[in-house]
Every structure is written in structure tokens, then in C-alpha cells.
């Protein structure tokens, strides 16, 4: 059961990393600014546009708000393995993690889990603040299906999405193993891709074929769809189908990510990139 120790200690390092640079409460509040501003931007664009076309509806606003909330949450921790490697190389730590008894894959999993914890907190704060702000902007609070059951369901969606985010994280981390120059804006690119391909702000059917076909089977799309089913439409049968499909897709993505990362690590060992400092 040593792998649990590896993951738990890496999670602890990740939490310190995310929160201990200042007062932890202040750190969480500051980290909530990004999801809050992103959700607000999406909602405001929708509101202004739809009101101008006289097509504003509460369901439409909540559709955008829920999508933006979840894509921010998913995106914010999918790139953590990449960051953990980039930062680890620059602090001369990563090579020493590689040569420990633990695999670097457990380290990256631990860092992803810690970021998940921080991200669920900050994205939820961002969502609540956006809901309140938009309520005051449109003059009333749109009706959400909120209750203990839906809250638990949203939390379940977040948890079940972890394999998908970790899988994507491993694939992206494979880049960081080789990189000699690091693109620090990578998280923004990934967030953007997830936003477009996951149906966060508009149905994926609007995308050109075959992108629309692929996008509808991406786990993130399924989970965002499931969140809308539970918070917006109270449609439990579709909810269960979406989370099952999303979770299965996530496991496949995790498996692919795991092997891509393992292959890349061996290749990086061959070319001598494991301990290469990033510019």
C-alpha cells in the first residue's frame, strides 16, 4: 500500500504549493477570482447578446453558468502534472523524484488530487458569487434545482471526472518531460480547448463535423451534460447515463495517458531530458 503514501505525500506538497505562499484563506479567495471572472464574462456576454436579440431566458443563462463553472474546474487541474514537472525541473526537484522508489506517476497523481481539492473549492466559490452577481444584474435569481441530492450529484460528477482530467494531465505532462522551453500560458490554451470541445458554453453539435462527433464523446462533455441534467432539467435517467459514459471514457483516457506518459518517460531517459532545466 506504499502507493497511497506516495500519493498522500504528493497531495500534501501540492496543497502547500497552492495555498502556503500566503495566508491559506486569502490564497483560496484569490484563486476564486479567476473562475469567478471567467463565469461572469461568459454570463455577461450571453445576457447582453440574448437581451439584444430579445431571446434571453433563465435556462439559457444557467446553461452557460453551469458549463463555465465546470470547464473552469476541469481545466484548472488537468494541466497540473505539466506544471508540476516544469516547476520541479526548475527547482531541481523532479529528477530526485524520478529516482525515488515511488514512480513519478504517483507524484503527478497526488499533485492532481490536491489541485482538484483546491479547484472544487475555488470554482464553487466562483459559481456562487457569479450566481449572486448575475441575479442582481438580471433583477431576479434564476431557478436552479438545488437540494442535498443535486449537491451530492455535482460533487459526484467532480469526483468521477478525476480519471479524465488525470489522463489528460498525463498526456500533457509527456510534453513537459521533453520540453527545453516551457510555455507558461499552456493552462490557458487547455482551458480554451476544453471550453470549445466540451459543450461548456454552446452545444457541441454546433461544431463542424467531425469535431462535433468527437466532442460529444469526450468525458468532459458528458459530465457537463450530466450537471445540467441534475441542476437544470432534473432529468435523472439522462444524468446516470451521462456520468456512466463520462466515467468510462475517463478511465479509457486515463489508461491512454498512463501509457503515453510511461513511454515518454522512457524516451526522455534515452535522450537525457528527464533532468533538463526548462527555459
Amino acid at each position, binding site marked *: 500500500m*506504499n502507493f497511497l*503514501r*506516495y500519493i*498522500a*505525500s*504528493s497531495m*500534501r*506538497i501540492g496543497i*502547500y*504549493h497552492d495555498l*502556503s*505562499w500566503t495566508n491559506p484563506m486569502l490564497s483560496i479567495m484569490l484563486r476564486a477570482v479567476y473562475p469567478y471572472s471567467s463565469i461572469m464574462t461568459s454570463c455577461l456576454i450571453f445576457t447582453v447578446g440574448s437581451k439584444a436579440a430579445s431571446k434571453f431566458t433563465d435556462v439559457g443563462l444557467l446553461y452557460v453558468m453551469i458549463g463555465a463553472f465546470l470547464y473552469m474546474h476541469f481545466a484548472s487541474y488537468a494541466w497540473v502534472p505539466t506544471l508540476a514537472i516544469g516547476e520541479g525541473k526548475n*527547482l*531541481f*526537484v523532479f*529528477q*530526485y*523524484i*524520478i*529516482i*525515488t*522508489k*515511488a*514512480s513519478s506517476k504517483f*507524484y503527478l497523481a497526488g499533485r492532481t488530487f490536491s489541485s482538484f481539492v483546491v479547484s472544487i473549492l475555488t470554482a464553487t466559490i466562483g459559481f456562487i458569487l457569479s450566481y449572486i452577481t448575475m441575479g442582481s444584474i438580471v433583477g431576479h435569481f434564476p431557478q436552479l434545482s438545488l437540494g442535498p441530492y443535486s449537491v451530492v450529484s455535482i460533487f459526484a460528477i467532480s469526483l468521477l471526472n478525476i480519471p479524465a482530467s488525470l489522463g489528460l494531465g498525463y498526456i500533457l505532462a509527456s510534453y513537459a518531460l521533453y520540453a527545453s522551453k516551457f510555455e507558461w500560458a499552456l493552462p490557458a490554451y487547455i482551458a480554451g480547448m476544453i471550453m470549445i470541445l466540451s459543450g461548456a458554453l454552446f452545444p457541441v453539435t454546433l461544431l463542424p463535423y467531425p469535431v462535433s462527433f468527437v466532442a460529444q464523446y469526450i468525458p468532459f462533455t458528458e459530465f457537463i451534460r450530466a450537471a445540467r441534467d441534475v441542476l437544470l432539467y432534473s432529468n435523472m435517467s439522462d444524468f446516470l447515463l451521462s456520468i456512466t459514459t463520462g466515467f468510462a471514457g475517463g478511465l479509457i483516457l486515463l489508461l491512454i495517458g498512463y501509457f503515453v506518459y510511461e513511454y515518454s518517460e522512457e524516451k526522455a*531517459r*534515452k*535522450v*537525457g531530458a*528527464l*533532468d533538463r532545466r526548462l527555459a
Partner: protein
Amino acid sequence: MARNLKLVAEKITREFEVKGGRITALYNVNLSAWEGEVLGVLGPNGAGKTTLIRILSTLLLPTSGSAKVMGFDVVKEPEKVREVINMASGAERSGYDFISARKNLWFFSQLYGIPGDEANKRIEELAEELSFKEYLDSKFYSLSTGYRQRVTIARAFINRPSVVFLDEPTIGLDVMTAMSIREFLKRKARDERITILLATHNMPEVEAICNRVAIIDKGRIIAEGTPEALKNTLTLCAYAIEIKPIPVNLGFLESVEGIKGYTMKADSQRGTATLQVVLEDEELLETVLFFLSKNGIRVLNTWRKEPTLEEVFVSYVGRGFGERESES
């Protein structure tokens, strides 16, 4: 006491692809180290020391050749090798800046699967041995260079490794810190029978703590033995010549047959320099003095030197470290 071979490298070659071709960083390197031995790998920058350590510590694959650490193949069984080794580099004060020295060490102890209580005890012990106990709870970034390096060295011993690879562990440190780290390394090798491979270009360090030395240059091991044995192989004579003024160029010495090598240390405050020459025959000293005088250099003092590792190095390589490094 029966001694076990802990590290064996056979014909290790490593080439790197570069623009316009390939460079050979290591060529046919053979090396072995015994239990409890401190093996120094002595060579100038760019000689291949770090590449060798990267291969033995499983971070890099060799192009050809094989190596075993504690009987495990570094190419085929990296996971098993990683259980019994550790390493540290003096050029890299590795640690998470935003957490304390204690938490840094604790984190690595967990990656070795050490139970919490035992890990805490070990961290305290290492901090005591390396004299940084009072800084254990200071954040890593706030530590001075010397204390960061102590923490880095402690990390290299956190898992009670059988073999430790150290790359220039005292580089850039003050004399006292460097001495205390050397004492620590000697104790670990002697008392806990840990095998240490020490890559360095610091000759006094090698003389102080290494049981055996391998001299490496341009990716090749060119001599190997105990420091004393290496000095005894030196049939050449070494002289120190104090000269004034400091010469800009000593290229004229290269035309003198019988000079195996030379190094020069300048004292700019006094405007003098000490030239160390390794000669095939002591009668050649007259020739050297003549050439110095011919080139307008005044000789202030001359004395014969007891051979040091530096002379050994010069006799094998032809030049001292300073000159070799400025070439690379």
C-alpha cells in the same frame, strides 16, 4: 572484513545528438566501487562526470555498455536500482522553496515509503549530524546557500541508501561548511558502509575523503587507483616556480620537449604568479628557466614539490584544470 562490490560499470559509452553530428560524452568507461568506499571521479568541467552519474542513477540511458548497482542493471531494472541509491548535486540546491527544510525532507522520505515516525526520527538525526537542526522549520528559500546544501545532502541520505552519487557536493561553499560535509560523508562511508561516488574537480576534497580515485578526461577514464598509488606512479618531477610579472601567454613552453604539463596560479595583488611544471627529467628545469628568462619573465623562487593529485592529473592530461576548463 569481506568487501562486496556495490557498483560495476563496464564499457559505458554515451553519445549525444547535436546539431551537425554526435558528441561522445563517455567512451568505454569501466569503473567499480566497493562497500563503504568513497570513490572520487576527478576531472575538469565537461569531462563526463555528470553524465556518468546520470547513467548510474538511472536518469539517462547509456548508448552502449552496462552498469550494475547492488547487482541491479541500471538499464533493465531501474526501479530496483532506485530503491538502493540516492544522489545530490552541489550545483543544484534542490527543494521546494515554499515549504520548510523539514517538510522537504519529509516529502522525500515518504516517496521512499518510510513510515512517518521513522521518517521524523531520521530527519532529526540527519539535521543533527549536518548541523542544521535550528533551521529545520525555516522555509527552504530563506536558507543560506550552505544550509540549503546541507539539506540537499541530508535528502541524499534520507532513505539509508547503499550507494550515493554526489556531484560536486561542496561547490561554492565556505571552507567550514565544506569541511563539515566532508566529515559527514567520511562517517557515513566508514560507519554505515555506504558506497559514495563523488564526482568533483576539487582535488583537496578528493585527497581528504576518497579511498580511490578515477581520473576522467574527455569522457575517458585515464587513470585509477588510491591517491597514494597514483602519486607513486608519478616518475616525473614537479616544480613550482614563482615568477614576475604575470605572463599573458605561456605558449612558448609547449615547444619545450619534456614538459609534460603546466598550470599557473596568478597573484594579481603581488603581481606574481606560481608556475607549476611537470617535467620528464629534473635537468629540464634549467631549460624552462632559460625560456622564461628569454621571454622577459623574472624567476623569484624555485622549489621541488611533493607530488599531489594535481600533478598526477597534469601528467596524464598535459594541462591543469584551469586550462582544460578554459578550452571547453
